[in-house]
């Protein structure tokens, strides 16, 4: 187990090094170069030359590369010249909103996926499973912006039930918890619909596959009740693909969905990414790209480790 953990961590670290290098070159593509992205100043295009010289960005590229690493280690992510605040501080402000939103969404999605997946696996080939299968197929093809738009159209505009957009920023004002929850309902439903349609399908297939295995038949032959087999053995074994996919959704807990947050004008990190791309505020864009990449690698690593705990065989794969 320790060897497996060490191996996975080493491999993930290498991925992160490559990723940071990739993003370094991406930052070089931005107009003005990393002068804005790492050491950003409120510099006009005309003064970029002077800024570059002053910040040592006229040194050879390999030296700049090490400067990039050095600043990352110090947590210096640059300076947003449009919002005139350090990027790190900005990210944190928006981070809180996204974390509330996506933690609720992912927990709800996982619970529903396990429920629907179980029904689908147990009733395989009969109408409950077919109904769920049809819904999964249809909802899986639904684009996020369309789901969000329809929900707003029905629940906000036609029925006046829920707010369509906006939220009071958690860190600045203290809104009533009810107001906050009401603002969260539609975004959470959107993410849940989209996540469950994919997640429940993987879990359902895994449950169905497990139910056909020899150990289930043996257990049934020994007279163990179906409930005990299902909840004692099958679910545990079927969780592996679910954990892998949850690992993939891990970065979204921190970075949010660009589309959903933009439709609902929800001031999270995804929304910030969108606005910054539109206004070409590169230091923020670069920092978020880097954050998402690193979190994805970490999410994969966590999924591998959890699977290693769940299933000893996964430790040797």
């Amino acid at each position: 187990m320790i060897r497996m953990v060490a191996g996975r961590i080493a491999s993930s670290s290498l991925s992160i090094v490559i990723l940071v290098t990739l993003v370094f070159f991406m930052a070089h593509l931005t107009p003005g170069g990393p002068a804005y992205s790492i050491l950003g100043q409120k510099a006009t295009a005309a003064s970029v030359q002077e800024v570059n010289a002053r910040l040592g960005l006229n040194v050879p590229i390999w030296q700049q590369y090490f400067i990039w690493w050095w600043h990352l280690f110090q947590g210096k992510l640059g300076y947003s010249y449009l919002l005139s605040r350090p990027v790190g501080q900005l990210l944190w402000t928006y981070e809180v909103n996204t974390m509330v939103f996506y933690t609720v969404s992912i927990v709800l999605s996982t619970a529903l996926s396990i429920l629907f997946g179980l029904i689908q696996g147990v009733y395989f080939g009969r109408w409950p499973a077919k109904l769920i299968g049809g819904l999964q197929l249809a909802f899986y093809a639904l684009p996020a912006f369309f789901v969000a738009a329809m929900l707003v159209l029905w629940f906000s505009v036609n029925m006046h039930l829920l707010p369509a957009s906006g939220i009071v920023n958690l860190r600045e004002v203290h809104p009533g918890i009810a107001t906050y929850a009401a603002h969260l309902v539609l975004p959470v439903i959107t993410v849940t619909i989209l996540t469950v349609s994919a997640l429940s399908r993987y879990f359902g297939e895994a449950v169905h596959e497990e139910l056909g295995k020899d150990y289930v038949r043996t257990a049934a032959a020994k007279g163990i009740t179906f409930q005990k087999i299902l909840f004692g053995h099958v679910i545990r074994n079927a969780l592996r693909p679910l954990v892998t996919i949850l690992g993939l959704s891990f970065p979204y807990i921190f970075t949010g969905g660009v589309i959903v947050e933009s439709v609902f004008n929800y001031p999270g990190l995804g929304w910030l990414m969108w606005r910054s791309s539109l206004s070409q505020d590169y230091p923020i864009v670069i920092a978020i790209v880097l954050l998402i990449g690193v979190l994805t690698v970490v999410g994969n690593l966590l999924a591998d480790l959890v699977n290693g705990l769940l299933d000893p065989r996964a430790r040797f794969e």
Partner: protein
Amino acid sequence: MSTTTLSAPRGAAAPAGKFIAWLTAKDTLATGVIMGLAILFIGFAAPFLYPPDPYAIHPAAALQSPSWAYPLGTDELGRDELALLLSGGFYTLVIALPAAILAFFIGVAYGLASGLGPSWLDKTLMRLLDAILALPSLIILLFFASIFTPNNTTLILLLGFISWPALARLVRNETMAQKNRDFVLATEQLGASQIYIAHVHLLRVMAPILVVNGTFMVGDSILSLSALSFLGLGVQPPYESWGSLLEQGLDLIALNPWWLILPPGLLVFGSLLSASLTGQGLLARFGGTR
């Protein structure tokens, strides 16, 4: 199996049940292809059959709901929404389809190079791929779109150069699985080059997988372009696409303009469903499961 003891009523709701059976039928190929043809017709033929100019402005007729004069109503500038939708379909498809083809060829080439090349090349390319795959494509798209402010040509290149990594991994793994089979080794012994082996044997063995995933990639390409346009960084004015039309409808959401939101959304949904059904149908035909 003990599950059979839990008997469930069959065919409980007849019409709904039939629809679901149709959607989940093992062979969804016909449904998918018919929907795909309908989408192609909307994008490439219908703009020539419906004469009104999509970009003509009629301020007097702004924001009207559907009527005989304007079958799908008008937007806030008084532009004919049906004409806009057809023109938007043209720009959506004329960008998304070539982009999907470009991504397909890059993915296949990268995967083959990695699978057939020397082991150091394979390791390097796969390491790089791991890092690239850690970045969601929409995020990279946003980044590059914000740098270049894309036009229709650069959008094709952008989408094409960003959408290939998943296929590359698949082709590489499949190449690894196939390249030590007897017929490949025999050809190698006879002095065939790697390129000959790749296009005569490997690509042929992989054809079903390539066709199925190519179909899915078309859907992904349409979705990526629509999402990017929805966010204002895809197809740029004066041209419209389904994504940008939906976004404009959403801007006016307080006025309840369902005729500006529903049709473009349904068309993107239809395209994705068509690609998904076709892909799954092909997979079932080729004897795969899923």
